[in-house]
Structures are given as structure tokens and as C-alpha cells.
């Protein structure tokens, strides 16, 4: 096998994409006049942890949200598990998913964790965790509950199973949100700045859970401001600047020997 080490795979050959969990190619996203992504490519193979870093407004969250079409890309190719998301133009010329069932199926394989947790406030933690397995994936309720209890104790929330999210700290809510993402046994986990909304003393407990997942070989795409953490857990780091990939590579190279002047400055400022 002559698989290249580069994360951007320019060709869309079938044998290459088979090993890829996520493949993004030449992605553009415009919000009206604002050109947020200007042709970004990204790839995540099984077991890889991709960290996307970059300054505010660089488009890193938008890139992540395009992967499961929470934002519809203006143009470009997105493949999940080798399956290309079919897009079409609507009557206003906006790109939208062409096949609702396809996008729903793909989304149900991607475990998304949000900056603001976004737990469903009218459900207890256990109900939050079993909601998607039971109602989207068709898992039997008692099976789902057993699995959810395991996941909640894994993130240290076993005794909070019947508590509503509003009664928990941010760190607890985010750990519950991670359990909710794990409950669908996701092919890839997507983290959108999972610790940005947390009090500093709560960041550690969430990073510990994410780090454990990374070490056990979960495929992840992680948008983060935690450089130290990205360096620890990522297998590949992508630095976005102004809607383009400015530099990418293994964490030692990105943080140890950055080439781009902008990246050097970014690391200095954050560091």
C-alpha cells in the first residue's frame, strides 16, 4: 500500500477513500458576501485525531459544521465513510443536501459535541443519552438504557442519571453531551470548541474524558483553543488562517517547528 502521509488527498480514488472516515475537498462557504472558507481540504483516517486550530474568524468552526451539513457548504466535496454527501442548489441558489434521508443517515454516524453542550433541557441525562439510539437508530429501550448507564458512569455521571441538565455544572453537562455522542457509537466524533464555554477549573475534567477517547483510538475532529491539549492528543494538526489551510502536519512539527510566519505568531500569542 502506498498511502501518502499527507492529509489532503487530492484524488478521489475509491481505494484511498475506503480508509478515510472523513474526506473534505476544496470546500467553500459563503455567508452572503462573507467568504468564510476559501477552498479547504481535510482528511481523517480511522483512528486519527485531527485538531483544527486557528484564530477567531478563521473558519474552523464553520469547517467542522460543514462536515455534517449543519452549515451547507457553498461548494466542494464531503465524503463520510467514503459516501459523498449529495448536494443540490435550491431555488435561491443556496446549496442544500439533495437527499434528506442520506444526510440524516450520515449525521447519525457522527457524534457532535457542541461548545454550549446543547443537551435537551426537558430530558434527564439518561433520557438525553438514549434519545438518539432509541428514536433514530431503533435500538430497544432497555438495551439503550443499559448502554447509557455504562457511558454515564464512564464520564463520571452515573449518580446523575435522573437529573435534568439545568441542575448540573457546565463540565458535567459537557461530559453528559460526550456520553450522548458516544451512545450512537459514532464513526467519527466532532468536537466544536468543547471547553470554550467552561469555567477554567472545569476544563480539565472534560479534556480528560476527550483525551481518554483519543487514546483508545477513536477517530475525532476537534476544533480547540487548548494548544497544550491539541499537542498531546492530536495525530495531525491543521492551522486555518482566513478560510484557508495555512499549515498542517504532525503536532511536533506544528508546535515545535512551525514554518509559516502567521502560525509562529499565533502560537506565540496563544502560548
Amino acid at each position, binding site marked *: 500500500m502506498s498511502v501518502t502521509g499527507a492529509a489532503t488527498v487530492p484524488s478521489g480514488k475509491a481505494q484511498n477513500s475506503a480508509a478515510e472516515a472523513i474526506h473534505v475537498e476544496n470546500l467553500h462557504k459563503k455567508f452572503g458576501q462573507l467568504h468564510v472558507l476559501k477552498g479547504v481540504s481535510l482528511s481523517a483516517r480511522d483512528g486519527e485525531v485531527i485538531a483544527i486550530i486557528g484564530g477567531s474568524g478563521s473558519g474552523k468552526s464553520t469547517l467542522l459544521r460543514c462536515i*455534517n451539513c*449543519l452549515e451547507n457548504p457553498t461548494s466542494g466535496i464531503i465524503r463520510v465513510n467514503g459516501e459523498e454527501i449529495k448536494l443540490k442548489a435550491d431555488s435561491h441558489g443556496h446549496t442544500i443536501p439533495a437527499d*434528506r434521508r442520506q*444526510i*440524516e*443517515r*450520515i*449525521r*447519525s*454516524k*457522527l457524534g*457532535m459535541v*457542541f461548545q*454550549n*453542550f*446543547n*443537551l*435537551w*433541557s*426537558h*430530558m*434527564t441525562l439518561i433520557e438525553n443519552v438514549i*434519545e*438518539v439510539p432509541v*428514536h*433514530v437508530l431503533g435500538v430497544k429501550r432497555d438495551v439503550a438504557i443499559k448502554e447509557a448507564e455504562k457511558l454515564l458512569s464512564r464520564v463520571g455521571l452515573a449518580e446523575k442519571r435522573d437529573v*435534568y*441538565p*439545568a*441542575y448540573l455544572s457546565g463540565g458535567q453537562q459537557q461530559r453528559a453531551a460526550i456520553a450522548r455522542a458516544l451512545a*450512537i457509537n459514532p464513526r467519527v466524533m466532532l468536537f466544536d470548541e468543547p471547553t470554550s464555554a467552561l469555567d477554567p477549573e472545569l476544563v480539565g475534567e472534560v479534556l480528560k474524558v476527550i483525551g481518554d477517547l483519543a487514546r483508545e483510538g477513536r477517530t475525532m475532529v476537534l476544533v480547540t483553543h487548548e494548544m497544550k491539549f491539541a499537542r498531546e492528543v492530536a495525530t495531525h494538526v491543521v492551522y486555518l488562517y482566513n478560510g484557508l489551510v495555512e499549515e498542517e502536519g504532525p503536532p511536533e512539527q506544528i508546535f515545535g517547528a512551525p514554518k509559516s510566519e502567521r502560525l509562529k505568531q499565533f502560537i506565540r500569542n496563544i502560548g
Partner: protein
Amino acid sequence: MSQGHGASAMPLGPIFPRHACRRRCRRRLEPAIRGATLIDALLSASAAGIIELLSYNPPGWGGKLLFGLLHSLEIALGATCLGLMIGTAGAFGKLYGGPVVRDLLAVYTTVVRAVPELVLILLLYYAGTDLINQLLAALGYQRLDISGLAAGIAVLGFVQGAYSTEVIRGAILAIPQGQIEAARAYGMSPGLMLRRITLPAMLPFAIPGLANLWLIATKDTALLAVVGFEELALATRQAAGVTKAYFTFFFAAALLYLVVSLISNFLIGRVEARSRRGMPSIKEAR
């Protein structure tokens, strides 16, 4: 005649001194006499009369009143259910629909909320049934005898729908968008998302407004008396008209409406508490 009248007022002379102007005297004296006879009448009636008047079986009118109340509740329930369905669909149409749908809904909610309900009821009841029958005739079907119950539910439901649309639209807008986004991100279909996330999440914001609409609906049923539908208000008017015991019957009807409101308040309170189960008490945040 005038002499006679003056004479009849005479015994009260010492208490109500007579004046030169006879007209003023009449004004003063008659309410006093009426008041006395009213209290007398009430007292004597209360002994047995009221119970007899309100007894369930004829010659009592209680059964007829309760029957009218049942009709009122049937209509209010039906209209509220229909209104909720129209309102939910309308709210989603207004929020997520295309430009044509949104414009049509804007016309619907504006017109219905601008025209007095009584006018709408008369218009929709007579014009609506006529229109349906003309349509049926044009298509070669027989004329339909539309029941008062069905027409009442349809008309009030149509009115309720316009108000519900706005209440539910506001409630949906109050849901933290992240929760909707999470549902989308996990591959929920629109129907599932509506059932599992959007409706339960908007309920705590919608219930105060919808509870208002329900109470208004129970009372709006009285408007259907004008088209001859026998609900509580018309039954009361008939009973009062026949027996001349206006006070007794209208007071009884008012009590029935009050009881309906009190029971509704109790039930709605429980539903509201249940819908707010995930929200910390507002008192703690004071």
C-alpha cells in the same frame, strides 16, 4: 290614574317625604319598592323555588343547563384541538415556510385577529355552510345538513388557529436554538424532531398563552347562541325567559363558567409544572 298612583305611595309618606314634583317622587319610591319585593321574592324563592328551578329533571331547568354546558365544552374542546393543529402548522409555516406560505399565513392571522369574533362567526357560519353547499351542488352532490356542533367547532377552531399560530410561533422562537441544532446534528427527521424536541421544548413557553386561549374558547362558545346553537348561554336565556327567574339562571350559568375556569386552571397548572420539569424554579433565581 295619577291620583291612584299618588295614593299607593301614601303609606310610605313619613319615610319618603312627598315633593311637589310627582315625577321625582316616582323615581325615588319605585326602586325602593322593587328592591323590597326583589329581596322578598328571592328569600321566598330560595326556600324551595331555586332548588326546584335548578333541579335536574323537568320542570327544573338544571338538566337543560348542564346539557348546554356539555355542548359548550364539546365545542370549546373541539375548537381548541383544531386551533392547536392549525396553530402548530401555521407557526411552522410562518417560521420555515416559503414566501407564498408565509404571506398566506400572514393574511390569515391578520384578518382573523382584526375582525370581531361575533362577525366572523356569523360570516363563517352562514356564508361557510352556504359555500360548502353550493360547492357540493356544483359538483353534483346532495346538499349537506351541517350540524351546529361541527360548524361551531370549525368556526371557533378557525379563529383559535390564528391566535394559536402566534402563541406557538413565539414559543418556538424561545427554544434555545442549540437544542434544535443538536437534534439536526444527530440525524433526526423533521417529524421526529417536532415530536421529540420542538414540541416538548416549546411547551413551557406556549402554555400561558394557550391557557388563555382555552379559557377564551370556553366563553366564546356563548357567541354561538346567535346562530341558534344550544350551548350554555342560549339554554340559560331560554330557561330565564320561560320562568322569568333571570337572576337565578344567569347567576347559575356564571357559576358554571367559573367552575370550568377553576378546574381548567388546576389542570393547566399541573400540565405547566410537568412541562417545566427540566427548568429550575424561578423563585430560586430571584
